[in-house]
């Protein structure tokens, strides 16, 4: 499956053929590609973390990346907004296209790129500032000249947090519970209105109730944003994602298809073994 995509030239046609095989809740007929990887290789020093991955991630869909630890899913996620640049030993080969432009081209400013791509981390990391300042952070650094308070309210509503914090916008973001902090981080990510939201195991540090709230939220977010989520939780991937990519050891993309297909009838035996818990 992963190999068939590399030789296509027109993205749309490929997606449409994929879509015909899938049966998903969101209609898949008008998909455009948001992010596309072409023959991507990533090395940490001498060690290869991603090995020749090519995939196309559709717009306004939730795409889940699953696989055992150390298989390169988080690395792939960090390639999209070039957060790998922060790691000095990291070397990237191949293309990652976003909005029709290779983000690794020399004329791309990674800081400007990250302003179009929101990111939510595994451990909630609100800044030690007030709730309002946390959400307004992206607006502040980008020199937003509209009504900041209005945008903060919209974002908190978008992250399903407004009702819980509307009376304490001035208190510190660190006073919230873990699940609220993670939703605050989501509000922070969506405040500057990005096109894509990357989530790196956003619920793994949360209790099940808080996690399910985040899952509901992700479902809503896909109305407006392209969501790419890394998760260790197979049920979560099955519940919330439209497309699922399975990475296995060595950083290889083994199978990438509609979620229902992956979980009901995977092509590869290894994927079935992994999903049913026989290894990994």
């Amino acid at each position, binding site marked *: 499956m992963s190999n068939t995509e590399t030789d296509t030239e027109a993205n749309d046609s490929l997606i449409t053929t994929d879509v015909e095989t899938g049966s998903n809740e969101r209609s898949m007929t008008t998909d455009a590609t948001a992010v596309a990887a072409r023959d991507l290789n990533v090395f940490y020093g001498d060690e290869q973390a991603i090995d020749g991955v090519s995939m196309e991630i559709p717009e306004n869909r939730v795409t889940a990346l699953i696989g055992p630890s150390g298989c390169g899913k988080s690395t792939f996620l960090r390639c999209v907004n070039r957060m790998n640049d922060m790691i*000095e030993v990291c070397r990237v080969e191949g293309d990652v296209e976003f909005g029709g432009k290779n983000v690794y081209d020399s004329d791309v400013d990674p*800081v400007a*790129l*990250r302003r*179009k791509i929101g990111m939510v*981390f595994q451990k909630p990391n609100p*800044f030690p500032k007030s709730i309002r300042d946390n959400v307004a952070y992206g607006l502040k650094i980008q020199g937003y000249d509209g009504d900041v308070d209005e945008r903060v309210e919209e974002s908190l509503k978008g992250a399903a947090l407004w009702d819980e914090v509307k009376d304490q916008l001035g208190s510190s973001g660190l006073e919230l519970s873990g699940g609220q902090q993670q939703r605050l981080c989501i509000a922070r990510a969506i405040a*500057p209105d990005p096109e894509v939201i990357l989530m790196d195991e956003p619920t793994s540090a949360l209790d099940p109730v808080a996690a399910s709230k985040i899952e509901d939220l992700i479902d809503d977010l896909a109305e407006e944003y392209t969501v790419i989520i890394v998760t260790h939780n197979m049920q979560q991937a099955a519940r919330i994602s439209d497309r699922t990519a399975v990475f296995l050891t060595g950083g290889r993309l083994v199978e990438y298809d509609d979620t229902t297909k992956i979980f009901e009838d995977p092509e590869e035996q290894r994927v079935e073994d992994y999903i049913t818990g026989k290894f990994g």
Partner: protein
Amino acid sequence: MATDNTNAGGFGEVSRVRGIAFEYLSLGASVIGLVALGVLLVYVTIDAFDLANASPEWLLTYFLTLVVPFLAFCLYSASDPEVTRRALSALGGGLVAVAALFTAIETFVAPIPRLSWQLAYLFVVAMPVTAYLTYIGSRGRAGGVGFGLVGRLVGGAAIGLAVGTLFLVFDSLVWFLAYTLGVVPAAALYAYGRRRSVNWAMTAAVPVGLVGLVAAVFLRGVIVTYPSDLIIYVWTLAIPVAIAGGLVVADRGSRLAGAATGGVPLAVAVAGGFLAGGFGVPGPTALIVLVTVGVPTAVYLHRVIDEGDGLVGLALPVLLVGGALVGALVVEAWGVPAPDPWLDASFVTEAPSRTAEDAGLYPAIVGSVIIIALVAVLSFVLGVGTSVFLEEYTPESGILGSLTRLIQVNIANLAAIPSVVYGLLGLGLFANLLGFGLGTAVTASLTLSLLILPITIISAQEAIRSVPDDLRRGSDAMGATRWQTTKNVVLPEAFPGILTGTILALGRAIGETAPLIMIGAATTVFSAPASLFSRFSAMPMQIYAWANFPQAEFRYGVVAAGVITLLIILIGMNGTAILLRNRAERGS
């Protein structure tokens, strides 16, 4: 062993002898350290206040009026941190503010000659315009990002400088006219325009003010009779400060409280200004100090009373001052012979002398304060800059990474270099090569800044390193540039730690003697330094000189008084910095 007798004697025993021995050894070490320091302090205090010669009645009186209420207060407040906090900030803040203001006015304002017109133009026109533009920038229109705090700082400093220059450049009579004809009508117009939202009034305020300023300059020669200095200060300074304080309080709550907040300190200050002449203090200085300290105190008091938290804490300053007064009255009425303390008002306000009775520390105190203020600014700016660069901007691997590590190791080594060597460096570099002069305040400040720079850098680096990487990544992922991440996330989070390191380093700088000897600082000067380039002495230098005097009164009494003064100033300075740090910690 445990498996052998599980059934017989429970689970057996685990030896704790070494742990217990270690615990008591640690206790012993700390007790020895604290007791040694305590004994030293007690001896010095007894010498400084001449308590050894005090009569038992005198000691008993003050024990009852001063020590007992103080201990009772400590016992009462020990359980309530809020009370302790209030007491400390009221006492420390008040002491530090009054002392700092007096010193600042006497050292910086009084001796500086009138500035030239070119400089005045720079301060009065160029700086406010810059400030205004920066302020606009901080609103996000002109400059965009990063001007918030910086803009407010620069703007505030520029306006402050401009107002200060007005005082210096115009004599007070021109300032009086300019204020009456320009500032007051302009402010009144602006306030009227704001309140009634009349736009022309607000627009007209600026030209009216300018016309008033120009008219004042021309009328200066024409008008002959002027009110006295004191009345000018009341009209141009005390009243506006009082109004500002009153407005702040009125904004929070009742108008009555606002009027009281402005009016009471104003009345006290005016009374103080007129009465000050009788005590040998210049009237205008007393007025300025009383009003600039009194109004903020009243605003603070109002807030504490309003909140009701830790109200009792404010009793401590009252207890101490009241206790001392009552003690003095009782001693006076009883006719008990009072001891003659070495540390009294004249000791801190007068110049050194040949006789022990007349010896004073004033020039050395001023010298130390000027030096330490400069050192604080220099070492903070340089130290934070270096540590931010080393921690946030240098790569960790490769040739540059190795170079960084080399620099790090060498900075750590610099912290271990004896201070005499820094003194030599200061002598060669600042005094001779750059020509700042032997034993001048600026040479001393630069030398001492270099001396504590390694400590500041290392502690600031530790503080910056302890900011979780999660926060940096979070900010980076939002599309923040490195500078934005550093400014908005790293520095605010590291600020309390940076401040702690700087405080410790400053404590070392204020007590240094060896480098001052090397750069040729005088052991004794008889007047406070008038500028940064004049000869000065510092407290430790003066104490060191006294310790070598042949007369026993110097070696025992005067030195002890000097040590206590040095300690009090050090504690006041550190206390202020710690309060600032705690505030920053609570803010985050």
